[in-house]
């Protein structure tokens, strides 16, 4: 037990030191995450199982959750039923093929899938291959730090909660922007959402990665 010492000190009527270091975190200790703890972490575990073991059960789980949402997103973005179905299957197949490129310290699974769906949508509906930023030369090669993963996924849950609490009008505006219904100048980014936290978190992850590679 990691707190035996503290208990002994307390029992002896002594002073219990307060640790200023990282909070004890189950995931950080043994390098694994417990999938049922958090929904986000459950999806991370699914993608990891696909990447490592080609696990079809994990893929089916991801599929059941995300495929209907990806298809709805494509329909909202202007695809008809059959094109949306076709395009969604393509997106889900890409998830299988690119699972090893997913980095849980830099994005949630939902976001990673969103970017794949968005790019495929531009391919199909606007007929051009969207220019993508250069891949980072330093990562993701090994396992991302589990504490980084936990921290980012928690920030993302906070962002999701903040969006769900927005007034209806503002939430619809954000959705419309991502369905491609607004031009960029109509997109107002000042929503008071905790995006800054995520930015700082990702910057930190980028710096750590870069440091580890140098």
């Amino acid at each position, binding site marked *: 037990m990691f707190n035996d010492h503290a208990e002994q000190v307390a029992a002896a009527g002594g002073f219990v030191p307060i640790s200023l270091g990282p909070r004890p975190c189950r995931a950080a200790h043994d390098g694994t995450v417990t999938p049922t703890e958090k929904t986000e972490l459950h999806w991370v575990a699914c993608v990891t199982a696909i990447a490592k073991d080609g696990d079809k059960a994990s893929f089916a789980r991801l599929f059941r959750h995300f495929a*209907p949402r990806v298809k709805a997103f494509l329909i909202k973005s202007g695809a008809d039923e059959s094109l949306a179905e076709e395009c969604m299957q393509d997106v889900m197949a890409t998830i299988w093929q690119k699972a090893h490129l997913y980095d849980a310290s830099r994005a949630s699974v939902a976001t990673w899938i969103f970017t794949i769906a968005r790019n495929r949508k531009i391919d199909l509906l606007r007929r051009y291959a969207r220019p993508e930023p250069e891949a980072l030369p330093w990562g993701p090669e090994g396992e991302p730090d589990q504490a980084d993963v936990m921290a980012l996924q928690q920030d993302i849950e906070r962002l999701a909660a903040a969006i769900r609490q927005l007034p209806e009008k503002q939430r619809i505006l954000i959705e419309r922007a991502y369905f491609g219904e607004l031009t960029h100048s109509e997109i107002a980014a000042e929503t008071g959402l905790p995006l800054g936290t995520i930015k700082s978190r990702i910057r930190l992850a980028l710096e750590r990665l870069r440091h580890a590679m140098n």
Partner: protein
Amino acid sequence: MNGIKHHISDDLLMGYAAGALPQAFDLVVATHVSLSDDARARLAGFEELGGVVLSDMEEADLAEDSLERTLARIAGTPVREKRVEPSRGIFPEPLRKIVGGDEDAVKWRSLGTGARQSLLHIEDGVSARLLYIPAGQAMPEHGHRGMELTLVLKGAYRDETDRFARGDVEFADEDMDHTPIAEDGEDCICLVATDQRLRFKGLLPRIAQPFIGI
């Protein structure tokens, strides 16, 4: 890359994350993000927003054999993609892709005064081009009918507002008249997206404008 002083605006990053920008602007944003950790981290924040929108979608009905057909698309195990080597020249990958190489692969056309340009893409009056301004020379003075996004790739220029060097972006709209002058010592290369034709103020350039297409 360190030392970037002029960053891209949130509305352009969000427009890029949403897939709502014209292709020419996508190219400038993707190239800038390749050079800036800050822009990369902020972009990740806006993509998380897209991930939340996706997660909150109402589920669409899938075709009955949707999962089976998706599995059929996946032949065998996940594909291991080769890591893309970072570009060693001055053009980041998204730009190198459209040019077909680095600086030495650009097909320049003279603008008459020692300055050169290369049109990379044009659609509905929205264009992306490379501009080459010899050291110490000025780009012809121009206002804007629409908006213009300039990214410096090599050398540096100054205009009425500030100094812009590699990785810096400058956004200008119709309210802005500026005269960029390349710094002495090194020729300046910029990637420029323009949403309408520029209106030159000098008489000769105005006559020449329809022919040179700037």
